[in-house]
């Protein structure tokens, strides 16, 4: 179908191609496994389509997509029980088989280490880091998605980096004996 000369199906597929990796990296940080993350993305697509009806069904802005993903993830988490979800997520991260980051760089030891440390960050810090680095959002947009001030978003991001650096330094010291 065409609205104002735009093929909607094509426009949304293109949008998905560009945004899916970013949205999935966020979803995977909040879901138990990759299948649940993809389900979450599909649920978000339906919601976003509904929201965009007021805008001729054009593909949405990325911050709105992240907001919807977050809302749906929170809703799922609430329904399933947060504790159960968190416990299972730790098991998933330790298994190492279901990384939410591309395993193509698995050969680089430092990258592997970095990913592992990112996954072990506290939820709030990892969320800010994910939205900034892989979501490509500004602090103002992160603040809007997480419903916090942009200063808090920036603080969480910086604190996440500091924690990562601290851990990596520590691991490097151990490695060097």
């Amino acid at each position: 179908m065409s609205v104002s000369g735009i093929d909607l199906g094509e426009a949304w597929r293109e949008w998905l191609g560009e945004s899916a990796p970013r949205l999935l990296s966020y979803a995977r940080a909040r879901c138990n496994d990759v299948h649940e993350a993809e389900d979450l993305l599909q649920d978000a697509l339906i919601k976003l389509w509904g929201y965009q009806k007021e805008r001729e069904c054009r593909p949405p802005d990325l911050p709105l997509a992240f907001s919807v993903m977050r809302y749906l993830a929170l809703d799922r988490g609430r329904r399933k029980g947060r504790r159960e979800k968190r416990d299972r997520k730790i098991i998933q991260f330790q298994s190492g088989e279901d990384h939410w980051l591309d395993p193509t760089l698995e050969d680089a030891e430092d990258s592997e280490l970095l990913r592992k440390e990112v996954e072990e960050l506290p939820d709030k810090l990892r969320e800010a880091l994910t939205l900034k680095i892989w979501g490509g959002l500004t602090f103002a947009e992160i603040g809007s998605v997480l419903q916090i001030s942009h200063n808090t978003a920036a603080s969480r991001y910086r604190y996440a980096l500091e924690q990562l650096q601290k851990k990596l330094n520590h691991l490097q010291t151990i490695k060097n004996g």
Partner: protein
Amino acid sequence: MDNTLKDLESSLETLTPRGLSDVGRDDCHQLIDQLVEANEFSANNLNREAGGWKGTAAAAAIALGIGVSGGWFLGVDRNSSLFVENEKAGDAEDVLAFEHLDHDAWILATESPNVYVTKLGEIREISREVEVTEEVIQHRESGLVVTIETTDHHVVDTPKSDF
């Protein structure tokens, strides 16, 4: 931000998020196609464009079906939330395009009532009924006859007068 953190930031940026799986991508594309089609159907139906009577008939059948299940045709106000949600101006027009030919309703199944005593000491009996309603409608323009069968589950709660 000091240089160490900036270096770390750069290292993080080199890690690439994994994309959708092939199955996930196919599912999403299929979903997008469905959403586009649904939107197209809705737009055509709203504008009464080339979709013709078939789309209208489908919408009317849904509206009528919901109306029947909500007690609309029977003159019973059952406060069907579905009916309220679908109560749009277009639906009423769709229904006018059809002639109501026949109506029938019967009880399909009942179960033995259970007797219980209320807090006030009143003896009552409760049972479940399955009611089937059949509506036969005809599309005025095409002559197509549609039969809509609705199944309603009722809880019957009445005072028990004798044993």
